[in-house]
């Protein structure tokens, strides 16, 4: 069961600092939405506000509305923990748990919530998730070794496996391939294609080709000027975005003329 997300007039703050201003968009269920834009324009910030990870930072808060399948995300009655169980996230930097083995890292979402499950069921989830993240073949013989003993790119794929192991309805990915080689990248892109049939996926990327390849819709973020808050410049279907965008700045950015 995938979910759609509606964002309207969203302002996002770090303390008094307005990082992103006036975001409006509709993220369709069972589709891939890509966020592109120059560094520091607030892509990660917007992404993190979609599963209430933003408020984890002291002083960070939002104004505006985010609704998931019609339900307001920032309603005072909404439990952020429940939100995050349904909306998973892969971070820009790989962050496996250092005290856990590869196996335990994949199962962390279940184990940390003390979900009871049989050994066979657990093995199953681990294998399926690791295969999904294209990591299974590399680690299947050392599942009990520490997750920190993997290379950076392997760690990132481990984090992806960990995120899909809990089968969230929406998956937010912040530059998941920035540390990966072309083979793993294409495996992740295949995975995104596969997941699309069941999940809603939002991905931040600096790679235009990747955005063009994997996404159905694309949002372009930009800064009006240095020190100004970031904003959503254009949000359109990906083919249109890359063929003839409405906005001149979008075209300039995509064709590599700036940013």
């Amino acid at each position, binding site marked *: 069961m995938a979910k759609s997300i509606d964002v309207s007039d969203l302002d996002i703050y770090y303390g008094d600092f307005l990082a992103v201003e006036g975001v409006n968009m509709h993220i369709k269920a069972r589709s891939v939405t890509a966020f592109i834009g120059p560094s520091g324009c607030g892509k990660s910030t917007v992404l993190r506000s979609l*599963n209430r990870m933003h408020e984890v930072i002291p002083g960070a808060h939002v104004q505006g509305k985010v609704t998931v399948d019609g339900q307001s995300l920032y309603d005072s009655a909404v439990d952020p923990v429940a939100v995050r169980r349904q909306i998973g996230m892969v971070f820009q930097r790989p962050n496996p748990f250092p005290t856990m083995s590869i196996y335990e890292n994949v199962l962390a979402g279940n184990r*940390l919530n003390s979900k009871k499950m049989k050994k066979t069921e657990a093995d199953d989830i681990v294998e399926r998730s690791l295969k999904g993240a294209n990591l299974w073949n590399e680690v299947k013989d050392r599942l009990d070794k520490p997750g920190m003993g993997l290379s950076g790119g392997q760690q990132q794929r481990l984090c992806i496996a960990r995120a899909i192991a809990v089968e969230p309805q929406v998956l937010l990915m912040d530059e998941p391939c920035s540390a990966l080689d072309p083979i793993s990248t294409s495996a992740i892109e295949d995975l995104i294609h596969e997941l699309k049939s069941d999940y809603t996926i939002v991905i931040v990327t600096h790679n235009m080709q990747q955005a063009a390849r994997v996404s159905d819709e694309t949002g372009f973020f930009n800064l009006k000027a240095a020190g100004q808050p970031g904003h959503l410049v254009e949000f359109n279907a990906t083919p249109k975005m890359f063929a003839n965008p409405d906005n001149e700045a979008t075209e300039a950015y995509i064709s590599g003329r700036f940013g």
Partner: protein
Amino acid sequence: MSTTTDLKTPTPDQLEPLMGGTLPRVAPLLVGVCSVALGALAWLLGLSPVVGVVVAWLGYVLGYTVWSRSVEGSRKATDALMRTLMWTAFVLAMLPLVSLIWTVVARGLPVLTPQFLNDDMSGRALLGVGGGIYHAIMGTVMVTAIAAIIAVPIGLFTAIYLVEYGKNNRLAKVITFLVDVMTGIPSIVAGLFAVALFIVVTGDPLPRLGIGGAIALAVLMLPTVIRSVEEMLKLVPDDLREASYALGVPRWRTIVKVVLPTAVAGIVTGITLAIARVAGETAPLLLILGTARVANWNPFEGPVQTLPVYIFQSLGQTTHFKYGEIWTDRVWGAALFLIIIVMSLNLVARIIGKAFAPKTGR
């Protein structure tokens, strides 16, 4: 443009040579032997041995630096000079430590017989027959253990509050300030606090009980425990907390299952060191534990003996015209055993730290 001129490939004569002169490998030894000879000469010429050592040291520092400068150039010479100065500082710091341990071991080891460890000061011990520190060892263990039982949970939870919940809020700032103040409490004042507290509780004008000593030690331990646990929790990267939150794990579970296990090595080490630190505390215990000659396992009644207090009180007897020597032996024996306890705690802390540390190997 100016940048292009800066980036021009340097001509060969502009390149710094990669090779330079080096001193032979035996150079330090050579200079060392010469300067020792110089020092010995100064001594033979009638100067005091201390002056001789200083002369030898100066000879080494100057000789090696000048030689290195003339052969290897100024960067390596500075390096050699700084290295010599740091070794000197290291040796100066080690001297008192080594000499202290040497003295205590040399004088205490012969005293540490099984009989000395298993005997207390009852019976004819005061007349120089037998006598030992069994009661003091047990008292130290009991009082320190109770202090740890009181201080560790409070300290642990306070630190967790400060790092995980109280980020920059008012209450956390006040607590941090109070902890800083507590760190500076003189230990004798902690003892006075315990005495005053138990005068009120028991109504006895001169309370003597083990729990009082434990509370005084707990007061001294608390800031150390809070500080060290706080530092360890701060070292846990926020990335891990976020990873856990993003999986829909509530905050308390994140703390229990992600943050604490990641920091456990440092936390346990810090706590063990805090315990070791108060195990040798004397002043506050002197006020509230009184003098006991036999082991007292009841912390709620009667005086208790601990090793530091035993040492202090025995020291008063070493000038006795007849039994002075026996008391001196007892002081050294007890001192050695106290050092052994504290050192083993430090060792245990290291072993635990190693055992719990997150493993990164493949």
